[in-house]
């Protein structure tokens, strides 16, 4: 088991290196010159020698591969560099990354609980009311664009009812940190959760139906154990694995979705940072945010592998 975990962890390193190089190289191709952001246009034309000296001192004339490894070395020392407007990327990320984790994490948590819960109930009480309502909601949730769901929620809950703020993460006049977080997170988390639940529910239902039709469920019933034990201990436990896999397959969509949803709610997370950086051409920021997202994705898929192994004796025992 330990060997399995270490192997999976080690495999992430070359992946990250390759990705970071591709992104680094790709962004160089855009031909945007960082000097243009640092020096005013008049300086640029009048003071060519100084600009050239600055270029040399920043190492911008070195071969690309040298620049890449210098940048990589800095990253490994915890220096994420500076954005074109001069602020330290590390300090921006330090504030905004936790916000995004909050947003994505709560959405993942709630959508998992709600989606799997409703899915399992729909399977156990097939063609019941919950099953029917769930199926209709799943169809709608997959058809309406997520940002539109966000807009509708803003329209209803912040503008018409005024219950929740329509944007931002912290209010300047907040009295309790918890209430502040709750009010600002509620709508964006709800938006992301609706989208995830739609997919998860449908999948959990189908998986659970498959499992409930299998022979070992009949064996379990033949022992005379109560139905809840049949469903939870024998049914759910076996449905967990495929559902977990699909959960992880959905994480990219969740992160992608949170990028959009952060824009809808002007929520100051990594996604909004990245979007704004792309629009304004602030490439050091784009580079760091992309890598954070890629690393998160790799860690997620690593965790799935571990979970999978824990749940399935065949993988756990290395057979």
């Amino acid at each position, binding site marked *: 088991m330990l060997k399995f975990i270490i192997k999976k962890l080690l495999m992430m390193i070359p992946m990250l290196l390759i990705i970071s190089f591709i992104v680094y190289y790709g962004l160089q191709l855009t031909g945007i010159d960082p000097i243009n952001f640092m020096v005013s246009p008049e300086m640029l034309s009048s003071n060519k020698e100084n600009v050239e000296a600055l270029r040399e001192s920043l190492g911008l004339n070195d071969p690309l591969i040298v620049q890449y490894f210098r940048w990589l070395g800095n990253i490994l020392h915890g220096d994420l560099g500076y954005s074109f407007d001069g602020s330290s990327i590390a300090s921006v990320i330090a504030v905004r990354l936790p916000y995004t984790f909050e947003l994505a994490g709560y959405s993942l948590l709630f959508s998992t609980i709600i989606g799997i819960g409703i899915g399992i109930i729909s399977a156990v009480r097939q063609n019941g009311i919950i099953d029917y309502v769930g199926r209709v909601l799943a169809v709608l949730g997959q058809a309406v664009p997520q940002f539109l769901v966000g807009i509708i929620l803003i329209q209803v809950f912040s503008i018409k009812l005024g219950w929740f703020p329509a944007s931002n993460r912290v209010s300047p006049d907040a009295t309790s940190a918890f209430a502040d977080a709750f009010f600002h997170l509620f709508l964006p988390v709800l938006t992301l959760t609706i989208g995830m639940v739609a997919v998860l529910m449908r999948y959990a239902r189908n998986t659970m139906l498959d499992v409930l039709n299998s022979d070992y469920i009949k064996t379990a019933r033949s022992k*005379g154990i109560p139905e809840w034990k049949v469903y939870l201990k024998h049914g759910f436990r076996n449905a967990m694995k495929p559902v977990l896999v699909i959960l992880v397959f959905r994480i990219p969509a969740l992160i992608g979705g949170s990028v959009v949803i952060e824009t809808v709610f002007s929520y100051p997370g990594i996604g909004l940072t990245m979007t704004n950086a792309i629009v304004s051409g602030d490439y050091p920021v784009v580079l760091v945010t992309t890598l954070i997202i890629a690393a998160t994705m790799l860690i997620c898929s690593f965790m799935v592998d571990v979970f999978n192994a824990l749940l399935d*004796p065949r993988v756990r025992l290395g057979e």
Partner: protein
Amino acid sequence: MDNKEIILNVEKLNTTFISDRKEIKIVKDVSFQVRRGKTLAVVGESGCGKSVTMNSIMRFTGKNAIVKAENIQYNALRDGKVTEYHLESIKEPNGPEMRALRGPDMSMVFQDPMSSLNPVYKVGDQVAEGLLQHNKGMKKDEARKLVLEMFRKLGIPDPEERIDCYPHQFSGGMKQRVVIAIAMICNPELIICDEPTTALDVTIQAQIMDLLKELQLKEGKSIILITHNMGLVAEMADEVCVMYMGRVVEFGSLEDLFDRTSHPYTRALLRSVPVLGLADGQKLETIPGATPNPADLKGGCEFADRCSECMDRCREKTIPMFEIAPGHRVRCLKFDSYPEVD
């Protein structure tokens, strides 16, 4: 025969499935008795309703099935006293009354050991689960001891080690022993074996059947054996129930069935069994045609289209059962001079 002698009495069992808003009768007016300490073999082609009959009795049919019966009476014999259970009147298929019977009184061994065990739990825990369910207050290590004992009895080698293994670490034959252990662990009176060896190698089949036979002889269990293997029937059964398209067509003792074969279908079935030393040039007989789709059946005898002795009146109405000798019943108009029975 009184309740002490009969352990299970099924009268007029009907099971209907609803598919695409159409009702399809799968089991029709099935009646049979199982004698205590004996083996009843239920034979017939695939899809004749054998398994559905047993699942209906144990109430394992899904939600799209309607089970109706005049009587499904299980007679438990405890300390010389008989307690009657009327399974047809139990409403909830998985409610407490039915559950109390599953395990300590009636249990089932399923066809495919590969899929009958839950892949994520240790086999020992799966066997112990029923034990702990029906013996409140039993400690886990006590249960473990009993499971080990059962494994030894069933000839599972290295029980101390194997008890903590997962199903995928077992071979097919060993898995089926575990499934039998699950069925046996609560010491039930009646064991329903639904084609217990179909999915196994021939050599393993013999081992498993010997095991069942031994259990029955030593511990006096009653067994219902579902099979389409006539060789097994000859070896194991005391009584035989032949089913065709959801109906019992012939019922009687092993001798009745093999020596005084009466129904044309039973005869055809017996002729299609390969025998060692079949004379040169003698061809194995087959039953012409295929089992009809239960949805397309017309009135009259279900076997009429494939029967060599079919008469016009065979197709007119449902054929009743005739008792041609005590305990030997046949559903065929050839015997309409004998008394009709239900």
